[in-house]
């Protein structure tokens, strides 16, 4: 037991922090947010040169084979600078899905390029009305001739406009799949909110799902330039370019199917956990920045003849922010550590995807604890930050809004507090 960062982790954090401060000042973030491209190509090259795009990827595919714990240390610093970057969408989420579900050929095709930053991949999972990423997709894959056709609509797909490949969750007609370990096929009809877990004790949900619903979940790779794929920019205020992806009779060949339907659920579940933890770290960086801005403001802003930080009501709000940020940080570190411990590489440093999917729920408690706590805590942090700042914090001229917009997006992504607390409750055998 030792809850201090290693020398290497501190060095990584310092390196990324310096880089973000130097190359990604808030005014540039504002400019990037207004641009078509939505991220800085220079930043992307810098992150790739630093090795962040390949950090998590297996060494056999040119990656560094490092852990999620190393990634979160870096991600927090990116979040502190509100840097718009496809790093998490591509090198964490999409790369994990391809790594865990993909064939040898698919992994060899995509992982080295994603790791080098020469290719960008993104996962399209949310659909209109969805409340979380674990729900069963409606986008349908149907047999057509020798291959398949894909039809459906995905929303809030990050960086789809620059993606070399889209990883798309689909319903596979006629393929019966038993509920995956995490029960990711279970859904509440009409509610758009999935239930965490196959054996949920709540009687009215999660029953008519999985095998009984007449379809399984699959993952396919789609070229965003393929006929039948239409992208439309959406605006969620989260600081990243997101897209509606409409798929109309898109041709899907055998080599585009990503893993077997039986592997898709667990692979997606593990990849989602990694993405959840990485995005939590990014959000913690933003919350830390909101705290720093609030403290600066409380020290310099004078009213009634003294700095407002000399008023205990203001000072204690700042402290409440700090205690929340610290709790989020250590819950996040623990979740990252647990993800690494649960899916260690074997002795030869080789990745055994099948082996790592034996227990996709191994970090359930730690991930759900981190995300459920962070959702609520980060909301509290930004509420305090805006109150400490007064009117100026509501202005687009002030930097606080860069982070508070991202904070709300984070809270609504990768499972809300209620969803993750239900996951914790299952772990308590409730």
């Amino acid at each position, binding site marked *: 037991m030792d809850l201090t960062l290693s020398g290497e982790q501190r060095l990584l954090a310092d390196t990324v922090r310096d880089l973000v401060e130097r190359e990604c000042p808030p005014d540039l973030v504002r400019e990037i947010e207004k641009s078509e491209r939505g991220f800085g190509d220079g930043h992307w090259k810098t992150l790739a040169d630093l090795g962040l795009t390949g950090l998590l990827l297996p060494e056999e595919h040119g990656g560094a084979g490092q852990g999620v714990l190393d990634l979160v240390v870096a991600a927090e610093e990116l979040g502190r600078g509100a840097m718009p970057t496809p790093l998490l969408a591509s090198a964490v989420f999409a790369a994990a899905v391809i790594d865990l579900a993909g064939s040898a050929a698919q992994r060899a095709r995509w992982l080295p390029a994603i790791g080098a930053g020469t290719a960008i991949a993104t996962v399209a999972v949310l659909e209109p009305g969805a409340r979380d990423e674990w729900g069963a997709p409606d986008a349908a894959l149907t047999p057509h001739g020798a291959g398949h056709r894909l039809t459906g609509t995905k929303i809030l797909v990050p960086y789809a406009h620059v993606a070399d490949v889209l990883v798309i969750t689909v319903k596979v007609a006629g393929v019966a799949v038993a509920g995956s370990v995490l029960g990711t096929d279970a859904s509440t009809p009409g509610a758009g909110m999935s239930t965490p877990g196959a054996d949920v004790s709540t009687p009215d949900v999660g029953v008519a799902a999985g095998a009984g619903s007449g379809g399984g979940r699959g993952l396919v790779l789609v070229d965003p330039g393929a006929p039948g794929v239409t992208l439309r920019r959406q605006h969620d205020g989260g600081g990243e370019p997101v897209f509606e992806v409409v798929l109309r009779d898109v041709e899907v060949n055998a080599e585009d199917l990503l893993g077997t339907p039986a592997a898709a659920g667990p692979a997606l579940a593990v990849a989602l956990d990694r993405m959840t933890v990485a995005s939590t770290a990014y959000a913690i960086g933003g919350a830390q920045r909101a705290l720093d801005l609030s403290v600066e403001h409380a020290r310099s802003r004078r009213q009634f003849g003294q700095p407002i930080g000399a008023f205990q009501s203001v000072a204690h709000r700042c402290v409440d922010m700090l205690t929340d940020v610290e709790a989020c940080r250590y819950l996040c570190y623990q979740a990252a550590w647990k993800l690494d411990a649960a899916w260690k590489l074997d002795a030869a440093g080789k990745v055994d995807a099948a082996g790592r999917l034996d227990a996709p729920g191994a970090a359930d408690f730690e991930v759900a604890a981190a995300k459920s706590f962070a959702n609520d805590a980060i909301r509290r942090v930004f509420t305090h930050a805006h109150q400490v700042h007064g009117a100026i914090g509501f202005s687009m001229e002030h930097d606080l809004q860069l982070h508070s917009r991202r904070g709300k997006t984070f809270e609504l992504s990768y499972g809300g507090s209620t969803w993750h607390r*239900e996951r914790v409750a299952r772990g308590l055998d*409730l």
Partner: protein
Amino acid sequence: MDFEFTEDDRAFGRRFAELLDEKLPTDWQGFFAEDREALAFTREFCRDLGRAGLLTVSWPLEYGGQEAGVWKQTLLRELMTASGEPRGPQYMNLNYIGPLIMKFGTAEQKARFLPPMARGEVIWTQGFSEPDAGSDLAALRTRAVDHGDHFLVTGQKIWSSYADSPADWNLLLVRTNPDAGRRRGMSVLLVDMASPGITVRPIESMGGWHEINEVFYDEVRVPRDCLLGPLDEGWGVIGSGLTLERIGIPRYARAQRVVERLCDHVRETGRAAEPDVRQKLADLRVRCEAAKLLAYRAISLVAAGANPSAEASTARIHATLLEQAVGHVGLEILGASGRLGSPSEDHAPLHGLVKQQWVHNIPATIGAGTLEIQKNIIAQTALGLPRSR
């Protein structure tokens, strides 16, 4: 960074858990339950643990420890606290009184005071607060007049825990130099509670039997060799002790034990499927985890040789608010029958465990520095905000 105990540490924890199962009376409700008999048991239990070398496992061999490391000590503390503190008042010896003597004491003081703590033979109380010096501790007036080879102490302390257990010794903060300014001129004395001139008046509390007291000092003679640390510099000594005290009690472990018992209860009473109950219990369990990790972070820093003041306060804020939340939310889950909170009451759910949790944690955000004082410490030391009132 590593979130796992070594197998050696875990094995130690398992052995100690078995020992607790074996030693604790079957109807053990915890030291803080309304049962004065529990105090007699804690004395016997501490002597047993002392003989087995388990009271102060992390201490150096020469003072009766096993040099077993901070994490074994942490696991042991967690099990003690979760089990309702079978050590009784003597947890304080390990938590901060012993470490303060180890840090500031002379060789003679260490040899004299530490081994009896390790043997489980001595109860300490403390004298910090006064009727007019609570959060404003530096306003204290209890005076120790320097007479060369001894001090004469006159004044009044309040909220002295376990003074009527009875306590054998007292860690007492006094003013030795009234002209040196508020925070200067204070000293720490180690006072034999059998000294003439000391009167203990128990204060009846909402928690039942007398755990808090007023203590009056009337020209109490304290030999000079009982001065702990430098004369007139007691403020720094106490500050260092309070950091240790704030992380010494693993309150999250007790909170987690109560949450686990609540989970058992809702399962047994068929309420585990209620979405609201599931959400509430899951939230409390997550908060236990947050409080534990923040304590482990502070302990990691102590283990690395630091004195993590703001980090200790951060851990304490989470732990104390959690303990209160477990009482409040737990009682809300139990509903009307939760009103029956005494272990001796028939029909008291979980033998009154949750109601006890509520009442004993009303002062959780008051002792060892109020919640507001903890926040002031963080505001000034970690955030660099101006002093505020």
